[in-house]
């Protein structure tokens, strides 16, 4: 039995390796793709954090304003003040606003106090009833807050003369720079709140 020279060789398949250039091109493309995906995911994650921070700031700003509005609607003249001074029933300082409200329980009144604790970065707002334990409404998100009690008395002759009006001018900037360095959208609240019950009782 004769074995030819060719058939004695193992089946020969020629595999060519990748060249350096091919490897570099593939690595560059892969780097670009992975970099793009990582960048995209980082931006999504940042967007989520920003959205969450904005959502919380919106919620806290809305709750603070709604509670202050509701309390002021139920504000009544301070019974401890003499009648001629009862339009001073709402007392405001840069760090707090306080007024009596009608509670509906045995016709008694309760004193509501909103306190603003400013801080180097972001301050907080809390609410307390009758000097009790304050409940935090906005926690470390207040960039600035001012509240000013404004009064007006109509002196013109004719109908309405002597009418007293009171309103609270509120300016607040909430959010923006949140906790742990997460930056969200800033909520600007600018409004005037009218204590309807108090105004009616004064007139």
């Amino acid at each position, binding site marked *: 039995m004769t074995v030819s020279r060719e058939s004695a060789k193992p089946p020969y398949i020629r595999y060519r390796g990748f060249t350096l250039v091919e490897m570099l091109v593939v690595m560059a493309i892969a780097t670009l793709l992975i970099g793009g995906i990582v960048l995209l995911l980082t931006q999504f994650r940042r967007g989520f954090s920003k959205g969450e921070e904005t959502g919380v700031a919106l919620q806290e700003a809305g709750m603070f304003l709604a509670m202050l509005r509701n309390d002021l609607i139920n504000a009544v003249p301070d019974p401890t003040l003499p009648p001629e001074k009862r339009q001073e029933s709402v007392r405001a300082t840069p760090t707090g606003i306080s007024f009596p409200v009608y509670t509906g329980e045995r016709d008694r009144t309760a004193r509501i106090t909103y306190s603003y604790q400013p801080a180097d970065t972001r301050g907080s707002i809390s609410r307390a009833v009758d000097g009790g334990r304050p409940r935090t409404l906005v926690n470390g998100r207040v960039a600035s807050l001012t509240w000013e009690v404004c009064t007006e008395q109509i002196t013109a002759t004719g109908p309405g003369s002597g009418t007293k009006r009171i309103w609270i001018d509120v300016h607040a900037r909430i959010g923006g720079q949140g906790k742990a360095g997460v930056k969200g959208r800033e909520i600007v609240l600018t*409004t005037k709140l*009218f204590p309807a019950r108090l105004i009616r009782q004064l007139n």
Partner: protein
Amino acid sequence: MNNILIARHRRALTLVEILVAVGLLSAVMIPVMLTFGAGSRGLTMSAEDLTTHTAALELVEQMMAAPFDLVPTGVFPHDRIRDNQAMSPATPLRFHISDVPGIERRMTVSEVSKNGVVRFKKIAVTVTMTGQNAKGSGRSVTVKTLLAKEN
């Protein structure tokens, strides 16, 4: 066994196959991408709602707090609702309005009579987001209330 030939036939992808693959990937990814945009839009709408509601309530509350007989009736377009401007010649009341950019206010006050006597005043305030640089969403909120004559 001479010249064993191992055929390694590698066929490239056709354009149609690539297009189908890209189409499927887009169909999966586009809704995912849109989800992120929807969240951001939702927050913008919530912020606008807070602004418009606050502005509408500011106007409604000062009308509610005014003496019934002094509340003027009529239609009050945006340019008549200005801070410290008289509400109408028939009343000594003035508007007290906060400066909020990007919104327009409109108010309607009408009388509701019974047996010839005015019992209520119907107040409707509409606040529209016009936005700065005319890029507002155009969304609006209307707050309506009845002011009762108490005496």
